[in-house]
């Protein structure tokens, strides 16, 4: 009986501890976030205000041309990224914090695993990559990619990685691909019409490698339409190259997954 009470109370204590530890951690993010979004909204909303694809192809094309010009004028270079001071980044705040930490820890000499237990994460008392590896193999993959990214540059920030693309960045990319993707109209609308494509991108947004994630489905009987759908998605990516990616934070989006789903369009 007493044993059970002990177990129960330990368990409850653990949960309370977890909540106490994790909640402040969660609360951190939104505090850091707003400046990033607000800065970029001003720049990109003009482009994202485009009425949706079918009726606004012309506008999208115009925007596309502008986009091309932009990238020609200022091609983002990897070298620049190694000297973060020279780029006026919207994520400046976060990066400054990160840089300080990096200096403290002498990041060049520290290998990846040690680097994970940075001061920034100390209060969490564990190595997320190792836990991830225990639970999910896919997390291991990411561990590898982060390892590689270290070689390219040091200004990587874990919180930035978590954020993904900001809403306006995502909108810009979406709007571009909406314009490029001709949905094959013959698709059966009561089937699963999701094609997931994993991309490896260059800093200028051009595609190094594209891979269909559910490749096996293509050759299944009765799924002939899936091949058609997947091909149309690949055509859209080819046509849209270089993709309208953010000018900064290459490490965040160098690996990108696009989920093409035709269902909404065909049903509506």
């Amino acid at each position, binding site marked *: 009986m007493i044993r059970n009470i002990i177990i129960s109370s*330990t368990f409850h204590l*653990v949960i309370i501890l*977890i909540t106490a*530890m*994790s909640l402040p*951690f969660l609360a951190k993010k939104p505090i850091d976030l707003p400046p990033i979004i607000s800065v970029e909204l001003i720049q990109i909303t003009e482009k994202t205000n485009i009425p*949706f*694809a*079918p009726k606004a192809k012309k506008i999208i094309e115009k925007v596309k041309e502008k986009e091309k010009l932009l990238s020609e004028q200022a091609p983002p270079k990897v070298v620049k990224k190694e000297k973060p001071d020279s780029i006026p980044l919207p994520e400046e705040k976060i990066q400054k914090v990160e840089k300080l930490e990096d200096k403290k820890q002498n990041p060049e000499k520290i290998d990846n695993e040690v680097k994970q237990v940075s001061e920034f994460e100390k209060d*969490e008392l*564990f190595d*997320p990559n190792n*836990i*991830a590896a*225990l*639970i999910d193999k896919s*997390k291991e993959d*990411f*561990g590898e990619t982060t390892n590689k990214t270290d070689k390219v540059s040091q200004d990587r920030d*874990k919180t930035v*990685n*978590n954020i*993904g*693309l900001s809403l306006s960045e*995502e909108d810009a990319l*979406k709007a571009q*691909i*909406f*314009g*490029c*993707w*001709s*949905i*094959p*109209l*013959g*698709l*059966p609308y009561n089937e699963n019409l999701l094609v997931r494509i*994993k991309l490896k991108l260059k800093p200028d947004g051009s595609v190094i490698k594209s891979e269909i994630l559910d490749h096996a489905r293509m050759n299944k009987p009765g799924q002939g*339409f899936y091949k*058609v759908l997947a*091909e*149309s998605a*690949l*055509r*859209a990516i*080819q*046509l849209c190259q270089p993709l309208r990616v953010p000018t900064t934070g290459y490490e965040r*989006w160098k*690996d*990108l*997954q*696009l*989920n*093409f*789903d*035709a*269902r*909404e*369009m065909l049903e509506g």
Partner: protein
Amino acid sequence: MFLRYILILFLLIPFNSFALIEVDITRGNLNPLPIAVSPLSLDSDSKSKLKTILKKDDIGAQISIVVENNLKKSGLFNPLNKDSFLQKPDIAHFKPRFEDWALIKAQALITGKVTFSDEKLRVEFRLWDVLAAKEIMALAFTTVPSNWRRVGHIITDKIYERLTGEKGYFDTRIIYVSEEGPKIKRIKKLAIMDQDGFNTKYLTLGNELVLTPRFNPTNQMVTYLSYFRNLPRVYLLDIETGIQEVVGDFPGMTFAPRFSPDGKKIIMSFAKDGNSDIYTMELENRIVERITNHPSIDTSPSYSPDGKYICFNSDRSGYQQIYIMKSDGSNVKRISFGKGLYGTPVWSPRGDLIAFTKLHKGKFYIGVMRTNGKGERLLTENFYQEAPSWSPNGRVLIFYRETKTDDKGEGFSAKLWSIDLTGYNERLVNTETDASDPSWSSLLSD
């Protein structure tokens, strides 16, 4: 024990997820796919021989025009102007320079070659994905030279299927009622033509009024309503032999015939004393079976593609509405509940939808609904239109539309129209005369 707690603790702690950035693309454009249809190349020897046989200068170019027109009418493709093509047909067929085709914004390219040997026409074609720079299909057909238009249709079907993911509907025919003369004295004949309006043939002379022709599944037989000796009855016509016969020995008027999906039965309405019910007749042994038995008007029956259900319209609720039942007449269920009158239900070849004509506040609509009556969508509205018929792939509906007669009794016309299931791409279908009551065949080459 302690270790176990630690493990649980680790599992429960929320940690930073290192997920790959995912972007959902839920919209695209429904713009037609830009496609380049290069004229099929033709060597000079075959060219001169084919010219004497077919009286056409360049049959390679002619076939490519058939393909191009088919693709254009489908509304899903945008064939590019041939003047902008940079590569010659013969070289393009051998190995296209993809940069040249990408330059004119083509996403797909069709090339081909026509040869004439042993009195046979051989047509080969290739379909290329310009952006991926690879061949995605190559086929060849051999046939008699006079069949060249059909080859164009078959090629279109193959391309359509490869690029859209569903079967095409181009190598098909349409049977309809050809109409001529003033409205009060219309001459009506059965006519049959290719889906693109060519090769029209007339099957009856126009002495009697004919209505509602329908193909059987093999497209060899037609069932229709004829007013022979002023008695409206369902007839059966063999297209090859021209032989006609009355269907069944009913003591009265029979109408609204249609074949069952296996082609073994004809389902129709039989009217007596102001009450009409639905009957079937087996063609082999002439056995007649009564399907509905209700003191209301039950008509326009149409089988589901698996033959298990029948949809029809009935005024048993007081107004004409659409019902479905099992093929033996049991489990009658009303499915249309909208305002207005519903008629001419036709089950889609895919099985998921029922097309219908709706009359509401003096306007006629062609629409579709799911087989449970939900999801009603009206595709087109007009002064007078009715009798939808499905393309064999269930993507397009063909129907007819009449215009209003003016005060002098003139200006009346009846034309065939087609419209996509999406409600877009409404097109006038070319016919030699005025036309009504169209019925689409299944794929001839399937």
